């Protein structure tokens, strides 16, 4: 099953991908599109990806998590237009023990954001649009921190 999808994210379906009679704990993470980003009103997002690499990188992250913890992991990430309040990303990790499920779910979520080649364009209420650059936000924050 591909990790990237144009369709709405279906959390129960993501859970069903990892659930099994011997795995009693399922941790999930859902990222929803917010209506504000850095003080500006956002109307919607448009996600694009280096599709072939994004699929492979998601596969590598899942394999890493499944070798590090006794878990089954599923990932789904939206592509294309995503509206405010909709889920853009979903991660599910199932394990016999809940601590493994929690840790694997968090690991996969962090690695996904750090490594998978996906980009998003924000459409603002004032009619402008821009590519989201989390590293620019981090640089601004660190400059502001130094000023204080």
């Amino acid at each position: 099953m591909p990790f990237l999808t144009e369709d709405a994210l279906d959390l129960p379906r993501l859970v069903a991908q990892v659930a099994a009679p011997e795995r009693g704990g399922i941790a999930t993470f859902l990222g929803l599109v917010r209506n504000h980003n850095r003080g500006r009103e956002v109307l919607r997002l448009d996600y694009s990806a280096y599709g072939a690499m994004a699929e492979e990188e998601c596969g590598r992250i899942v394999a890493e998590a499944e070798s590090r913890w006794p878990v089954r992991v599923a990932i789904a990430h939206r592509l294309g237009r995503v509206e405010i309040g909709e889920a853009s990303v979903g991660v599910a990790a199932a394990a016999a023990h809940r601590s493994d499920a929690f840790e694997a779910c968090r690991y996969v979520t962090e690695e996904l954001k750090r490594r998978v080649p996906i980009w998003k364009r924000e459409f603002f209420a004032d009619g402008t649009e821009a590519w989201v650059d989390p590293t620019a936000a981090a640089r601004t924050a660190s400059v502001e921190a130094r000023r204080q």
Partner: protein
Amino acid sequence: MRNLEHSMTASPAPLISVRVLVFAKFAELLAREEIDVTIAPPATVGDVIAKIRASIPAAKALPPELLCARNRAHASPSDTVSDGDELALLPPLAGG
């Protein structure tokens, strides 16, 4: 055998070709989604990027440090490229 070795050393190795995919903000900046680069081996990912910076005027606006991929995996500028490789220039990732 002697002749073969001699000829391999004497004649220059054939050039290698790689395709460089460009995404999102970088695709807008360069006004294209892929760039075919021919380069003399041995060459690294960094050499290919340097050739792009030198040959495409708009590429001078690319940031000095670039996230890049080789054959659909994250790569370092020091990684060696082979003929037929698929490279990619990745703007700051924003998934999730």
